């Protein structure tokens, strides 16, 4: 499990107009944290920083003991592949791949996650199948349905399976319930939390929907930890 630490992290798209200025943010290993913030508050920028796609202007982002802001671009890509699972808001799957191939895709770019899948399940395919079964997609798996034949909720569950295969230390979900109704949203969130626990992953869910907070150990309001002026001025 990963401990996430942000220390004096600053980021600005435009010079002298910082979007993010986080003095400190500490997420313990195994925690289920909900980061809530309205649109434009810098949630997406924060995710890009946490996954190493953006580098902070200053400060340290430490995930599982590694200061990812000090890594080279290639090493950051490798780190992301090895240690972070990511669930998008929607359009999570590659439509031209089967369910199982979509799930296994995450292991194709990471030897570490492949090794873990092999260690625990004997093969990457078996690991993917087990995840899909756990996430209630056994019937779809057996019937070899295509991505296009799945409902949005089912697609999100396949995305969770892909994010969790090879047991990454950190699971990040970016507004994963925005396309779901209230009942499906709660069911999906509970399932996500349960699976993250099962695979010992620290869970970090980002959304504007404050109703999701009830499911998590802790809720962080982005505007509380972000002292940058852009959002406040807006």
């Amino acid at each position, binding site marked *: 499990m990963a401990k996430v630490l942000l220390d004096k992290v600053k980021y600005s798209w435009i010079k002298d107009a910082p979007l993010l200025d986080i003095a400190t943010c500490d997420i313990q290993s195994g925690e289920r944290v909900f980061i809530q913030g309205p649109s434009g508050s810098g949630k997406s920028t924060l995710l890009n920083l946490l996954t190493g796609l953006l580098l902070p202007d200053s400060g340290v982002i430490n995930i599982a003991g590694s200061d990812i802001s000090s890594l080279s671009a290639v090493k950051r890509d490798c780190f992301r592949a090895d240690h972070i699972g990511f669930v998008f808001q929607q359009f999570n799957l590659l439509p031209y791949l089967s369910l199982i191939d979509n799930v296994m895709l995450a292991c194709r770019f*990471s030897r570490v996650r492949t090794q873990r899948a092999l260690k625990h399940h004997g093969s990457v395919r078996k690991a993917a199948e087990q995840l899909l079964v756990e996430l209630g997609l056994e019937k779809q798996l057996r019937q070899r349905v295509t991505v296009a034949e799945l409902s949005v909720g089912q697609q999100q569950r396949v995305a969770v399976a892909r994010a969790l295969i090879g047991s990454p230390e950190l699971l990040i979900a970016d507004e994963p319930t925005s396309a779901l109704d209230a009942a499906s949203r709660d069911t999906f969130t509970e399932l996500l939390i349960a699976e993250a626990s099962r695979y010992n992953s620290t869970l970090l869910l980002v959304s504007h929907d404050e109703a999701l907070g009830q499911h998590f150990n802790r809720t962080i309001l982005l505007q509380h930890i972000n002292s940058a002026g852009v959002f406040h001025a807006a």
Partner: protein
Amino acid sequence: MLLSVALSSSWSRRHTLFFIVLTIALSVTLLMGVEKIRAEVRDSFNRSVSGTDLIVGARGGELQLILYSIFHIGQASNNMSWASFELIKNNKHVAWAEPISLGDSHKGFRVVGTSASFFEHYKVGQQTRLEFQHGRAFSDLFDAVVGADVARQLGYQLGERITLSHGVGKTSFSEHDDRPFSIIGVLEPTGTPIDQSVFVSSQAIEAIHVGWQAGSRIRGQQISEDEIRSKSLQPKELTAVLVAMKSKLGTFHLQRQINNYKVEPLQAVLPGVALQQMWQLIRVAENALLLVSACVVLAGFMGMLAVLLTSLGARRKEMAILRSIGARPWHIVALLVFESSLVSIVGTLIGVLMSVFLLMFARPLLEVQFGLFIQSAGLSLDDLPMLFCVVLAGALTGLWPGYRAYQMTAADGLTARY
């Protein structure tokens, strides 16, 4: 790893890519077709004369001499004397010398007056001797041997009687219809002007012109065949001489001697040198043809570039997903380059197959209509560098969309939405 993703991704857009493949295939077909015909024309010319070291004729253009004596294109402006021919033939360095008398035709096909030993000596292609499909070389004064195309196009068989016309046009008003010839032999196809020629003896050329003056029959003069046979038919003039030397060293010596011959203005040309002159002359046209074909291929690639670039917008999420699971920027570039390579390879392969089949089907037509003898419609080793360049250019076409995709993913990060 990336390969299977790229293959699946391309397959999912197969309907769009099909038309790009088709465009490239058609342009490669054109390129291959032009290149093949160009090579075959060149090969056909090179094939037409082999084992002949010198061509001798009346002084004029070197190129003109080889064109009329070997390729039957154009006409000689002057003849040379039979005495000069005898002199050349009896030179101690000469292995053989064959006379060529032109000026008459049969239904548009050139008539060549020569000696019976021509069929033993003359070689085409890789030192290949002329072979008879049916019959044998002429022995009688009014025997004729026809080339394979003449026999096929006019449906001639052994024993058939034909008459010759004065002049080389397709239609002639001066027929030697009083002196019919019997077809005694039909030659095997060679893919050279031999196939479109009618061969008779040099004496026969002399014989059909007995009673003729200045290209027309002398009115009121009736000479029977027996009278002709009894006459001395020793030719006084001929159009050209094909010469083979005993040793290559003697070639230049004899060439110099002939070119400096004071008694009669003659010239001797080396066939290879004359052909080189011809290639230099037509290289501009060849290059222009190739350039047009290359432009068509380029247009195909521009189409592919446009399709790949316009598809990028719709593929932003695909790139974001790949980046989220650890794909590096070069993976994204490679994905696009692989796709353009795949399209180019498939397009090129289909293009090659189409050109092979088209040439196979068009072969008889090209042979009949244009006298172009396509030896092999298949792919040759010489085509491979050109095809490799086409595939390489196609693959490189993917670099620009790849770079654009990389820029997009760098800007989008994990938050591309559409």
